[in-house]
């Protein structure tokens, strides 16, 4: 059971930051080692070219895409569940999920960063990519979604959500932390813990959650479209790709949240703050989503083998009974267990953290293998006009090393964060709609202005990226129009920050007082606001 939320009049229970433990240090060192090894492998690849990978030309029987693209899709997929869980928790007020929301959001952000690393590792000229994508990115290419919607829109929206949801805890930590207070104060950005703050955040988080969900489905669909709309590649060309990518993202992401939650709970001994009930909820999500994906796989295989064109059948047979059969059947078995283990727990009304953890791990094994099975066989065995016989793609140790480095990035960021910030959100009293006075016309005006400018940037950026005004020219008319579009999407989500953190009139915001350097004034301001809080609650 969840601990009851503290009574409204008591100050929020401040969560102490964990002490530096040997286990934490050792984990951090392992993660740093993985990053260092990944960077070393990346340096080798940059120096020698992609000849050090196992990739090859599809026309000559190889796969031009391999582990990097599979893990790009995997990491972006893992990111799916985190922010979805946070959004669902807010939209439907699922109290049992609240303790895991911050870890889930954190996993979303770190996994997206790892996904961006995967894309960068895959580019033959990463620096050119950084320079040319903001300038020339073309929305007609499904990659546009990966570069703008996923990285700019979805990552930024997640960061905004994460930032706003943690302001309250940042303000609380700023009061108790022994060092680095400036960081928490900056994060708190004027949070006074007044009822109006809570009400505004309650309102903003609802609309943000509502806005993030469709963006998320769109972003994951664009990943599916990278494969699904290529008619020249048997095995890829399917309307099922986009929805299947969304569901598989849910499977691996829920598994990822379970694994991270269990690991952090164990490492920091947070059993009293993250109850089993939260993880049971995640287990239930996992079996439902795994079951849906199993259904998708049956549909997919039936379509590809029943009366499909010869090339599609060839690829499907190669996957099910041919060279890829060991990978395929491992994926099927893992996915089945990821469904069966939590489902049996659900039926027997039991709770076993070890079993749910195993299911979560297997879900991710299945996700990685399935992504490889989507990416590779259609290239090595699906080429319609092939000069050389197909060869089997085997990743080189350099590719594996770079992927290990990406896992290192995720682990390092999470470990660092849980040490310096409370990972379990404080259960605060439910908010409500802010009153007219609490909104204030200045706040509304600033938010509206931000949103309108953002919409203008989005319109200008996307139309020019589509080369609608270019006439006979092949390039956009404005410099950096894809970047303008991405900036517009980011600004639109920033309007939530403007609304929530716009300085309130009357009382000076805490952050300003602190910036003047008067700690005692700051303490009094806190006191004043909490007294004010009590006064307001008693009519």
């Amino acid at each position: 059971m969840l601990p009851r939320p503290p009574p409204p009049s008591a100050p929020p229970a401040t969560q102490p930051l964990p002490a530096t433990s040997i286990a934490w240090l050792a984990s951090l060192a392992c993660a740093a080692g993985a990053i260092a090894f990944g960077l070393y492998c990346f340096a080798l690849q940059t120096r020698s070219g992609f000849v050090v990978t196992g990739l090859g030309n599809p026309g000559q029987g190889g796969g031009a895409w391999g582990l990097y693209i599979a893990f790009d899709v995997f990491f972006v997929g893992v990111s799916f569940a985190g922010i979805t869980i946070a959004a669902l928790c807010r939209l439907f007020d699922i109290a049992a999920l609240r303790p895991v929301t911050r870890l889930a959001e954190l996993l979303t952000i770190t996994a997206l960063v790892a996904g961006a690393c995967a894309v960068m590792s895959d580019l033959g000229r990463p620096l050119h990519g950084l320079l040319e994508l903001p300038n020339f990115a073309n929305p007609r290419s499904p990659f546009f979604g990966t570069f703008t919607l996923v990285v700019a829109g979805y990552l930024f929206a997640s960061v905004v959500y994460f930032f706003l949801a943690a302001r309250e805890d940042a303000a609380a930590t700023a009061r108790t932390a022994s060092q680095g207070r400036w960081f928490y104060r900056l994060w708190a950005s004027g949070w006074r813990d007044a009822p109006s703050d809570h009400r505004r955040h309650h309102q903003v988080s609802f609309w943000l959650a509502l806005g993030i969900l469709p963006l998320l489905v769109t972003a994951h669909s664009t990943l599916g479209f990278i494969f699904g709309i290529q008619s020249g590649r048997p095995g890829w060309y399917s309307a099922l790709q986009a929805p299947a990518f969304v569901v598989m993202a849910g499977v691996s992401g829920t598994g990822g949240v379970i694994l991270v939650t269990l690991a952090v709970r164990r490492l920091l001994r947070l059993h009293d703050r993250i109850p089993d009930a939260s993880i049971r909820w995640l287990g239930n999500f996992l079996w439902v989503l795994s079951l849906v994906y199993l259904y998708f796989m049956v549909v997919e295989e039936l379509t590809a083998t029943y009366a499909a064109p010869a090339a599609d059948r060839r690829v499907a047979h190669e996957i099910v009974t041919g060279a890829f059969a060991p990978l395929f059947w491992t994926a099927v078995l893992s996915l089945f267990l990821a469904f069966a283990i939590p489902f049996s727990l659900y039926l027997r009304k039991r709770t076993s953290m070890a079993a749910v953890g195993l299911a979560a791990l297997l879900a991710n094994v299945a996700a990685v293998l399935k992504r490889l099975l989507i990416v590779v066989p259609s290239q090595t065995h699906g080429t319609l006009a092939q000069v050389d016989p197909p060869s089997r793609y085997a990743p080189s140790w350099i590719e594996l090393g770079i992927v290990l480095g990406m896992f290192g990035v995720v682990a390092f960021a999470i470990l660092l964060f849980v040490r310096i910030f409370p990972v379990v959100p404080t259960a605060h009293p439910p908010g409500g709609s802010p009153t007219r006075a609490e909104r204030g016309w200045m706040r509304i005006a600033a938010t509206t202005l931000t949103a309108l400018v953002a919409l203008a940037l989005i319109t200008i950026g996307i139309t020019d990226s589509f080369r609608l005004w270019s006439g006979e020219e092949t390039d956009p008319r404005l410099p950096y129009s894809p970047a303008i579009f991405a900036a517009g999407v980011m600004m639109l989500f920033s309007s939530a920050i403007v609304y929530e953190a716009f300085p309130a009139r009357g009382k000076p915001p805490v952050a300003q007082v602190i910036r003047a350097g008067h700690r005692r004034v700051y303490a009094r301001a806190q006191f004043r606001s909490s007294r004010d809080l009590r006064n307001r609650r008693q009519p």
Partner: protein
Amino acid sequence: MKEKGPTRRSLLGGAAAAAGAAALGASSSAAAGPARRWGMVIDLDRCTACGACTVACRQENNVPPSRPGPEHGGREIEWMSLLWQEAEGAGGLPIALPFPCQHCAEAPCVKACPVGATLKSAEGITLQIWERCIGCRYCMVACPYGRRSFNWEEPRWDGTLVQLLNPDVATRPAGVVEKCTFCHHRIRDAKQRAALEGRALADEDARRLPACAAACPAEAIVFGDLNDPESRVAQLARDSRRFRLLEHLGTDPSVIYLKRDRRS
């Protein structure tokens, strides 16, 4: 896809026609009928599978030589190669198809490129801007013909080979995708020469313009403007033996093959 209404080009042409004599001087090129569409007809009856086209292409376009060793396998850069197919019926020899980029009118690679590094020229050639390519290789997986090659490492011309480089064509760095350009530098050159002589580019100038067509001893490869009904290539393209590769995909390739009739 073909019947998607008036294109920008046809609209421009229509506007120019409506404007009448006043506009004729300014937009004579737009009013002069459909633009060129460069294309190639490869007669498999004539082809002897000698491979001269592949060598000439390599030489002309500075395609780096393939290197021995397992780490280079499946990573050869090929603009033009031979695609071997089993012959229909018993007793026939396998057929070799000289296999350049098909220069599809509806090119999947052009749609896939995220930065516009690959594009269709006004005359129907699928071009690749090496300078802009970021090396994501999406065009390679999108191309159903597998006619795009990635520079898996820095190209190398050992010893005296470097002296054989063609100064008309830039070499490509590691990390970019490259492909057949229908020798567009030769087309440009021929156009300039014709302009110096004060005439338009004629069909005779174009027939054996690309290096592969020039090198073919059997004259199996004919090049020209498919939109000009009088050109040799357009006449051959109407032959009853005509077929195009993977036509069911709707890519509308500009390379047309003539089926082998003789059994030899």
